[in-house]
């Protein structure tokens, strides 16, 4: 344990987030006059950064090491290991970015308090999800992520788009979580336990069929959270209709949360051998999902006219890439750890670049320029820094070498190939080429095109400082992750390898 | 946990009659239930209204019913027959099934509440139908079904007063359910069980002995604060003054029962009384040591009845003495006052128990 500290210390990040959420409520209680916007943004950002710091500290201090050094708490229902910390880092950083950005986005909103606290509570749920070692905790945490998200998407109560998005998100979400829950119940029926390890070791006497159905249903639940086929169709609506910071939050953090479930639950509760023996071959289903998802996402994104919607589809595509991490697994395959680790690293990088991209959209919405590519034309004349940042995000998302996105993608594909999934990697590569097309459209619009009317950009009168800060920080992170990729990928790989 | 609970009523029957099969159990239970049910109805349906009129009259210095029978005791059966024989007027646009179910649900749920209440012994018979592990939670569950029936009635009878009444009933029940249960929880902390017999048994121990008179550890004595809270919440729960806004005859003309007449009205009326007495029973069991009292256990039922009537008296006094609260006051008292107080009480109790135990 972390040099003799009580075991609960391992939960520090989650606790910090939770406390932050409550603190936000208190702040708003003390100063409910909506002017507390700034103070709440500060509190929230500080809290999430503290959580991030705690995560990094825990990881660095090696208190929780992947090799058996994982901390088990609360009768094994909670397991803090490097995997958990890694994902918690993603959640915390994305949360910080979103909160900071929200300060400007909701500058004139009547009551931003709910927003901040909801985001932090959702982040808490994610952190909990990352450490969940029991299906019960998984489900509870999952709901704890979903419920605030529903509200967040529909946060602009007067905006029909937002409300509709929230409605659709909620419908699909409720349905999928019910399916997920029933899947859990079937698994419980078959194995008689909710602790992942016990499920793995349980003897399935004649109930293998039940187990199989349960696993399939759970895949459905995961598919929803990760916005991948077949539960993907909420994503474009939700991301487009929701306030842009929320879209950023959902498409980065919430997606990663879905993946942490996939990574941990499926590898620990239904180990590969068991999956093959009980022929509950979830790897195969994930492989198919990954293939369909990335293709659908990318090709749909290519035909979009609105930047936000394009980003939404592209995030579906990226879900497809990350799914490779659970798809390209074989029984004692040489690169199991590598491929999953690469997927994790990709999620981390993606967390920054995608959040940044959506936050740029948020800035555009704040400025009141339109939503389509054409409306972005020539933005760089008015906002060079932000535009450069956006270019960084786009190229990185497309996986161009100078940026971190390239590494994470490359290693993902390489590991998949090492594991014998040449076709998946190939498909991924093709999709990346496709994606380059529509990502570069944004850059083209920003830098090369001229605004259709010289007065088109006069709307840009404000300089949303906080939004700028968030975007620029995300860009810097995206770039710095290139030289700093070593520790990231190695941590991720170690964490993932511990699962096999 | 106090003394072991006496033999339950149905078991008593089965043993005396030597029945031993599921059929026998069912039959015995039915008999027991019928007996208990009738006893309760006799109290509530007959004595209740009569006493109500008498008490109110006494408070307001009037002469109440005295024509029919001694002290006008027979007025109630007469009124019942008369009401049953009245025409049932069904207004247009009522939501039929729920409009019919509501009047059944109210008395049934209230009656059901008694199933787990240990009503003490009457001679050899222990008037206690069932004693499940979760009886304590169960009784509250049964008691709160009533509000469903109220909102059904309010919504079904196509009438604005009724709608308001139903909604108010719900709002009020919601507002006071929590304080009620949380306060009851402090009792559970004392008792350490949810079994009714356990709760009652735990109150038989002697708390203190003053001048040779040993005062039992009724929770009313142990924790008067909780008792007051519970009493208040209970009043609201059963919708009596000052919390009778669901009916509020002077504002919304009897609220949810405006459109009811004939047998249906009788049922509502009856149900309310049963509900009052159930509230009394709960109070008695939870805070007043159930059927315990001076004298042999075999007359426990007497004590129980006394306690219930004491509560009934209290409600009638409140009805005569206290003004009705407004809906907003009601909500605010409930959520801002009672809730906080009840949680404070819970924590307090926990600490005290932790210290003394």
């Amino acid at each position, binding site marked *: 344990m972390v040099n003799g500290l009580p075991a609960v210390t391992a939960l520090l990040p989650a606790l910090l987030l939770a406390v932050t959420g409550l603190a936000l409520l208190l702040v708003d209680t003390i100063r409910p006059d909506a002017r507390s916007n700034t103070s709440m943004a500060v509190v929230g950002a500080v809290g999430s950064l503290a959580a991030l710091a705690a995560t990094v500290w825990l990881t660095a201090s090696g208190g929780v090491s992947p090799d058996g050094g994982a901390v088990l708490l609360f009768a094994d229902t909670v397991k803090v290991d490097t995997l958990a910390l890694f994902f918690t880092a993603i959640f915390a950083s994305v949360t910080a970015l979103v909160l900071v950005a929200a300060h400007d986005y909701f500058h004139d909103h009547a009551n931003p308090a709910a927003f901040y606290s909801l985001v932090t509570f959702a982040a808490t749920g994610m952190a909990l999800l990352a450490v969940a070692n029991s299906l*019960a905790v998984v*489900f*509870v945490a999952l*709901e704890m992520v979903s*419920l605030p998200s*529903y*509200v967040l998407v*529909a946060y602009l*109560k*007067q905006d*029909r*788009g937002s*409300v*509709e*998005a*929230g*409605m*659709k998100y*909620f*419908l699909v979400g*409720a*349905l999928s*979580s*019910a*399916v997920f*829950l*029933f899947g*859990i*119940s*079937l698994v*419980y*029926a078959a194995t*008689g*336990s*909710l602790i992942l390890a016990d499920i793995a070791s349980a003897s399935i006497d004649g109930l293998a069929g*039940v187990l199989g159905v349960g696993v399939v249903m759970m895949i459905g639940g995961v598919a929803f959270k990760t916005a991948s086929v077949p539960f993907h*169709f909420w994503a*474009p*609506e939700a991301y*487009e*209709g929701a306030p842009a910071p929320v879209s950023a939050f959902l498409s980065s953090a919430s997606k990663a949360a879905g993946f942490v479930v996939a990574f941990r639950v499926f590898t620990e509760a239904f180990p590969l051998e068991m999956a093959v023996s009980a022929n509950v071959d979830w790897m195969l289903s994930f492989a198919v999902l990954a293939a369909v998802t990335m293709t659908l996402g990318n090709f749909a994104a290519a035909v979009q006219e609105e930047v936000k*919607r394009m980003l939404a589809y592209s995030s579906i595509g990226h879900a497809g890439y990350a799914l490779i991490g659970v798809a390209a697994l074989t029984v004692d395959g040489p690169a199991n750890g590598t491929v999953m680790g690469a997927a994790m690293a990709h999620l981390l990088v993606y967390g920054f670049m995608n959040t940044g991209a959506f936050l740029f959209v948020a800035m555009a919405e704040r400025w009141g320029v339109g939503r389509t590519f054409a409306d972005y034309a020539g933005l760089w004349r008015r906002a060079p820094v932000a535009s450069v940042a956006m270019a960084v995000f786009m190229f990185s998302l497309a996986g161009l070498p100078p940026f971190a996105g390239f590494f994470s993608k490359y290693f993902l594909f390489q590991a998949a190939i090492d594991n014998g999934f040449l076709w998946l990697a190939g498909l991924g590569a093709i999709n990346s080429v496709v994606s380059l097309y529509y990502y570069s459209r944004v850059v083209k619009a920003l830098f090369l095109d001229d605004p259709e009317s010289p007065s088109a950009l006069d709307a840009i009168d404000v300089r949303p400082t906080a939004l700028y800060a968030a975007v620029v920080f995300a860009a810097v992170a995206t770039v710095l992750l290139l030289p700093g990729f070593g520790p990231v990928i190695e941590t991720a790989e170690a964490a993932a390898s511990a699962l096999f | 946990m106090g003394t072991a609970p006496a033999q339950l009523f149905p078991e008593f029957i089965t043993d005396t009659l030597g029945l031993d099969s599921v059929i026998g159990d069912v039959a015995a239970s039915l008999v027991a239930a019928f007996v208990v049910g009738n006893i309760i109805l006799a109290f509530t349906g007959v004595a209740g209204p009569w006493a109500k009129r008498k008490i109110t009259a006494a408070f307001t210095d009037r002469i109440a019913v005295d024509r029919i029978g001694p002290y006008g005791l027979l007025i109630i059966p007469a009124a019942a027959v008369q009401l049953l024989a009245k025409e049932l007027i069904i207004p247009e646009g009522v939501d039929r099934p729920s409009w019919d179910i509501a009047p059944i649900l109210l008395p049934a749920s209230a009656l059901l509440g008694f199933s787990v209440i240990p009503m003490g012994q009457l001679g050899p018979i222990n008037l206690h139908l069932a004693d*499940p592990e979760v009886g304590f939670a169960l009784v509250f569950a049964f008691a709160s079904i009533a509000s469903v029936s109220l909102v059904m009635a309010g919504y079904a009878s196509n009438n604005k007063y009724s709608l308001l009444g139903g909604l108010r009933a719900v709002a009020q029940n919601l507002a006071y359910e929590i304080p009620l249960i949380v306060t009851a929880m402090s009792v559970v902390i004392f008792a350490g069980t949810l079994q009714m017999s356990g709760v009652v048994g735990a109150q038989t121990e002697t708390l203190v002995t003053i001048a040779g008179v040993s005062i039992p550890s009724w929770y009313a004595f142990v924790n008067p604060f909780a008792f007051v809270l519970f009493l208040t919440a209970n009043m609201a729960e059963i919708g009596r003054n000052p919390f009778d806004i669901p009916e509020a005859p002077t504002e919304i003309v009897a609220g949810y029962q405006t459109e009811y007449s004939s047998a249906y009205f009788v049922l509502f009326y009856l149900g309310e009384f049963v509900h009052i007495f159930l509230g009394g029973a709960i109070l008695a069991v939870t805070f007043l040591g159930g059927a315990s009292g001076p004298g042999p256990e075999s007359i426990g039922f007497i004590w129980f009845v006394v306690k219930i009537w004491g509560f009934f008296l209290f409600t009638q006094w409140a009805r005569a003495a206290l003004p009705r609260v407004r809906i907003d006051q009601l909500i605010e008292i409930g959520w801002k006052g009672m809730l906080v107080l009840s949680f404070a009480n819970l924590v307090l109790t926990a600490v005290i128990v932790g210290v003394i135990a």
Partner: protein
Amino acid sequence: MTALASSIPPSWYLLLASAIFCIGLFGVLTRRSALYFLMSVELMMNAANINFVAFALYYGDLTGQVFALFVIALAAAEVAIGIGIILVLYRNFGTTDVTVPAEMRW
């Protein structure tokens, strides 16, 4: 109680739960009103609860029952939020028919 309940083979519980789940699913797929949708989802969740409780009994551990408690709580929260969203939906679109709002193309 235990004697009574455990005399029923577990597969019956499974069948019951699955049946209820399918009913809920059917409701989800056919109903157009958001409220019915909500109810159907609740039905599905309760089907899961049946499984949990039943098999908690079958395996003789409390995990399932406790989890069922949690599920109830979560379901309640979900309904609360759902109704909230339906409320704003109604305010904006004047209906609770989930097929009506189509500001954005699918």
